[in-house]
């Protein structure tokens, strides 16, 4: 199979030429040649002329002395809109359309299939609800004060530095806060008062978290002066501006003030002995 070169010793003339009239001329062409007797048998017998070939009287290609000639002796009339179509390529109609077999794809058990579908729906709803809740809460968190602001807004006081029976005034968010380390007798006095008949009835238990520590905003509820400690008719605070008297629990007892002294949010840090206001 080694072709090192290809040489032609003879050049054959082309076997087809065109006459001046335009008709192709093939002098040695044998139109009667048949295909070899079926070298690959696939069941249609010996090859022959096509069964649908036109008969000789309609016309066809023939050899003449001057070459090949194609002639038609019959002219078919064109089909009219009213004539029937004898040739078409549409799909043949079958009597019983074949329905595919879907049994392979059908669920084996309808109950488990239904339970599984509802389970998936419910799980998706669960995750969606969690995402929605998380989105809303995270958005609302952006509106609240951040941790550094909250840290600055707190004040810590060493409780051990306040002796019993003494007041301490600290500044918290620009306002004074009174911290009173009450003695036991002061606690008893505050608790025994008939608070139900006061102007702003509040029991001492409602106003303090630990009985010995009284924490409240040092702003008179009347017009915002700062009351003076350990004075007044009730052993508590006295506002010098308009003469409001507060008792040892910070409740208004006399004068124009309408409400008791306000209690800020505070908590005790027992581990370090500190009071955290804010």
């Amino acid at each position, binding site marked *: 199979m080694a072709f090192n070169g290809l040489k032609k010793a003879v050049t054959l003339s082309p076997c087809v030429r065109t006459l001046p009239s335009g008709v192709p001329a093939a002098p040695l062409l044998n139109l009667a040649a048949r295909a070899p007797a079926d070298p690959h048998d696939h069941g249609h017998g010996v090859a022959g002329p096509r069964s649908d070939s036109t008969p000789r009287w309609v016309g066809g290609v023939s050899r003449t002395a001057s070459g090949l000639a194609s002639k038609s002796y019959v002219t078919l009339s064109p089909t009219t809109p009213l004539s029937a179509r004898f040739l078409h390529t549409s799909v043949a109609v079958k009597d019983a359309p074949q329905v595919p077999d879907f049994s392979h794809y059908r669920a084996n058990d309808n109950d488990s299939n239904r339970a599984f579908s509802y389970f998936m729906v419910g799980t998706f*709803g669960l995750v969606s*609800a969690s995402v929605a809740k998380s989105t809303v809460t995270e958005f609302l968190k952006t509106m609240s004060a951040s941790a550094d602001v909250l840290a600055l807004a707190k004040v810590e006081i060493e409780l051990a530095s306040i002796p019993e029976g003494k007041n301490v005034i600290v500044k918290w968010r620009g306002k004074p806060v009174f911290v009173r380390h009450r003695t036991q007798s002061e606690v008893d006095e505050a608790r025994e008062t008939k608070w139900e008949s006061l102007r702003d009835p509040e029991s001492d238990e409602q106003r303090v978290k630990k009985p010995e520590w009284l924490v409240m905003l040092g702003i008179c509820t009347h017009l915002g002066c700062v009351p003076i400690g350990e004075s007044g008719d009730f052993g508590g605070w006295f506002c010098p501006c308009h003469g409001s008297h507060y008792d040892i629990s910070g409740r208004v007892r006399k004068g124009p003030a309408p409400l008791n002294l306000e209690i800020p949010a505070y908590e005790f840090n027992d581990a370090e002995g500190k009071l955290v206001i804010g």
Partner: protein
Amino acid sequence: MSFSTTLYNTFFRRNSIFVGTVFAGAFAFGIGFDTGATAFFDRWNRGKQWKDIRHKYVEAAEEEE
């Protein structure tokens, strides 16, 4: 009665119970997810957070005093 039928009759048959179960499950899932994520974060950053190393510095400060 199979498990799937019991499941369907218990949770899915009434829509009110279905939706209620979904919301309750979302609540529990949120708590569980937060707890799990926090536990993972603490385990991943073990020894790096203030609450892990606080005892060193707090004790040292008390000794200086």
